[in-house]
């Protein structure tokens, strides 16, 4: 694993010292990227706190919208394992669910807990779009529907559940009877699960879906199953939650963490010129920042990233769970897991690199 200063090979020691020098000289450093494992996220937050930096590891607006829904309305949800074992009625919304390995695991299971007598699961798919036919073999009933009309569709679904019929001509590519059909199936289900990818829905649509499931629970049981897969950002959000009280986006300029998704949006900070140094942390994948910027750049990621211009400091690190033992978010269980390295390399971890930078800041400030 390489360490570089610009184009030149360097020692880890010199790279850590140079990174510390850049951060110490910055007025507002931005820490961003695709996230890290628990130890990496913890070290990044300590570093951000020390330098009064801004942190954005929640660059996906869909996940921000899900965070906001949780904070403002709450959520009613279940786990993938319970959905697999119990859901006798499964409603999929949008094409994004098809990309989820976790959802495939749910579909593979038999709902033994809902139907000990051997009744089968009904799986419906609304607005599958281009992903229709991508989950063959699960007996999914494709209802069609136009994702761009999802707000109206969910409104009519909510209305149908409360006994109000849909307009005679249908809506959003769906025949009028479909709304009552879907609502009826979930109302009569023993345990219904509604799976969606936040990437397919905006805040309003997710809220409508939550209302639908909340109302179902007045008479039967149902739960949401948000499908999200990004180990690095999900891990970061969890660690940030217990250490700071907030998921990213946060700033530490005032010492105490300040949660502000608009102000600490990485793209906005860079485009407005509010930050003057950039630390890109991407522990699970070799990736480079998407912005064209002249800001001094520190990159901590596995080997293989392609850069428009070489970063001032590049520290390549071991992939968590693959090359180094680590704890991180598991899509399959939607929880944090501890994973032994498949092939430990003894390479530098992100946490070690970030702690190394922090140590050099402490030394230089004495």
């Amino acid at each position: 694993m390489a360490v570089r200063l610009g184009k030149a090979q360097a020692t880890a020691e010199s790279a850590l010292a140079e990174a510390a020098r850049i951060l110490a000289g910055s007025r507002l450093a931005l820490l961003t990227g695709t996230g890290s494992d628990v130890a990496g996220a913890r070290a990044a937050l300590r570093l951000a706190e020390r330098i009064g930096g801004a942190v954005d590891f929640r660059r996906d607006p869909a996940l921000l919208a899900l965070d906001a829904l949780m904070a403002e309305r709450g959520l009613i949800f279940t786990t993938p394992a319970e959905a697999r074992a119990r859901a006798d009625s499964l409603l999929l919304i949008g094409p994004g669910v098809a990309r989820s390995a976790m959802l495939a695991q749910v579909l593979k299971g038999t709902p033994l807990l809902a139907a000990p007598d051997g009744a089968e699961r009904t799986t419906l798919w609304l607005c599958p779009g281009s992903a229709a036919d991508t989950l063959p073999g699960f007996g999914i009933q494709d209802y069609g529907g136009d994702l761009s009309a999802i707000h109206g569709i969910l409104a009519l679904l909510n209305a149908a559940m409360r006994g109000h019929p849909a307009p005679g001509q249908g809506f959003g590519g769906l025949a009028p009877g479909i709304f009552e059909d879907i609502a009826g199936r979930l109302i009569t289900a023993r345990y219904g699960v509604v799976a969606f990818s936040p990437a397919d829905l905006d805040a309003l649509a997710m809220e409508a879906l939550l209302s639908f499931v909340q109302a179902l629970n007045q008479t039967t049981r149902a739960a949401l199953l948000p499908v999200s897969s990004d180990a690095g950002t999900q891990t970061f959000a969890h660690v940030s939650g217990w250490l700071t009280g907030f998921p990213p986006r946060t700033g530490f300029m005032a010492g105490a963490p300040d949660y502000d998704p608009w102000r600490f949006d990485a793209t906005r900070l860079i485009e407005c010129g509010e930050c003057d140094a950039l630390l890109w942390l991407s522990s699970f994948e070799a990736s480079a920042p998407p912005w064209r910027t002249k800001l001094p750049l520190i990159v901590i990621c596995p080997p293989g990233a392609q850069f428009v211009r070489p970063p001032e400091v590049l520290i390549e690190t071991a992939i968590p769970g693959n090359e180094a033992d680590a704890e991180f978010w598991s899509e399959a269980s939607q929880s944090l897991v501890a994973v032994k390295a498949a092939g430990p390399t003894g390479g530098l971890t992100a946490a070690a690199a970030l702690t190394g930078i922090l140590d050099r800041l402490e030394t230089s400030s004495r």
Partner: protein
Amino acid sequence: MIRLKGGRILDPANGRDEIGDLFIEAGRIAAPPPDPEAAARSYDLAGKIVMAGGVAMHGGLAGPNANAARALMRDAAPGTVGGIGLAYAAIGMTTAIEPALIPEHAVETHLQLGDIPFIDKAALALLGNDDALLRLIGEQHGERAIDDFLGWTIGQTQALGIAAVNPGGAAAFKDNLRAFAFEDVVPGYGVSARQIVEALIGSVQRLGLPPALHLECNNPDRPGSFVTAIEAMEAAAGLPLHLAQIQRHGFGAEGAEGFSSASAFLAEALAYHKNVSVDAGPMLFGARVALSADPARQFERSAGAGKWVVWDGEGNGGGAVPDRASETDYRHAIQWAVGLELCLLIDDPWRLALTADPAALPQIIQWLMDADARAECIARLPKPAMAMCLLPKLDREFSLYEIAAVTRAAPARILGLADRGQLGIGAVADIAVYGEQADKAAMFAAPDYVFKDGELIVEAGKVKASRVGRTLRARPVAQGQIASWLAQHDEALYGRAAGSFAVPDAFAGAESCFGDVPCRT
């Protein structure tokens, strides 16, 4: 060696209430040296009260339900693990328990516990709504299989003991049962809450886990809930059992509102069932977030709440529901009174652990020690509610010695933590020193000194040293024969490897944070 000189030592575990010296060496309470004046450091504690560091029995410290509460509190001041540790340490509590570790979230729970500074922690693993246990009971696999499963669960989750919250009721809620009484049967398993409780009590006893089963009974907060708690006491049949959050089971159905105090019945039953200990968490009025691993109860609570989180897990799940306890609300007034009544009516302090949010504990101690302070609050509450309570008639006032018992000695003994909650030679040098004041809330909110493992961590409200404590766990001997059954079970039902949530002895890049607590023999 450190000398704590001339304080009034209140140490119920060793029967001490006397002016004397304490000596600390290598993080432990040491025998007095031949020459006490030779101690490297000496604190003059004349006129001060010296107690062991407090043991908080029922914390709600970590895990997915704490995360949910944090998300819902984003606009207020969400708690952090740093804040939790500081809040306990600042009032002289040096050990706190997460009473509802959800096995599937054991890794995150322990990561969070590990990041809580200052204090020692431990977690109790939740069972009793999970398919594996219900099946082992329902299909009559026998005691050995159940013991094996509990032992395996403790090992995977690095827990100190076993807890159950609404046993059977959270599973039944997934089958749309909204209430679940002690003799009710979980659909699909043919297993009642009674059978689950009996199986867990017996197995915990056979394994010799340090704490007895930590049980939050079914149907909390409801009129008539005291009956369920008494049924659980009877089910224990003389074996050790701990009933958690007992104040939620202190309600009868008397009066015009059909909601009344039944704490006298509970206290009487407890006087009879000497094998049963309890923790009681009297409440404060004001904004709060109800945190629980019981999704059924959380859903019931959510009616009328603006925002709430409820989730179903493979076993318990849970949720968070913000609300406000109001002094003008009849039910809230009864709930407030019942929490205090139970503490005042239970005459054996060894079986009572006082437990509350650290921000609330000093006020609750004041109410227990000062009948006038209680009367002041009673005067503000609805008279019809107070007419259905005993509290206005109770004049008992706790002594400092009794407070030391219910906040230190008793919870440590109930949890099986022999090395703390007491100030005997060899005990962990967790010590809180308070300046005696008439205002007990002020006194217990601001200790003069707090020592953890012999290190001064708080002095006059200021942090003197930051440190990270240990997470206490038990290591029962389990046969391990359940592993192949579990592997098949988890693969068939959940499509996962059994123990995919296992907590390693040390997290990546860190030293082990665990401390082992011996099992009972």
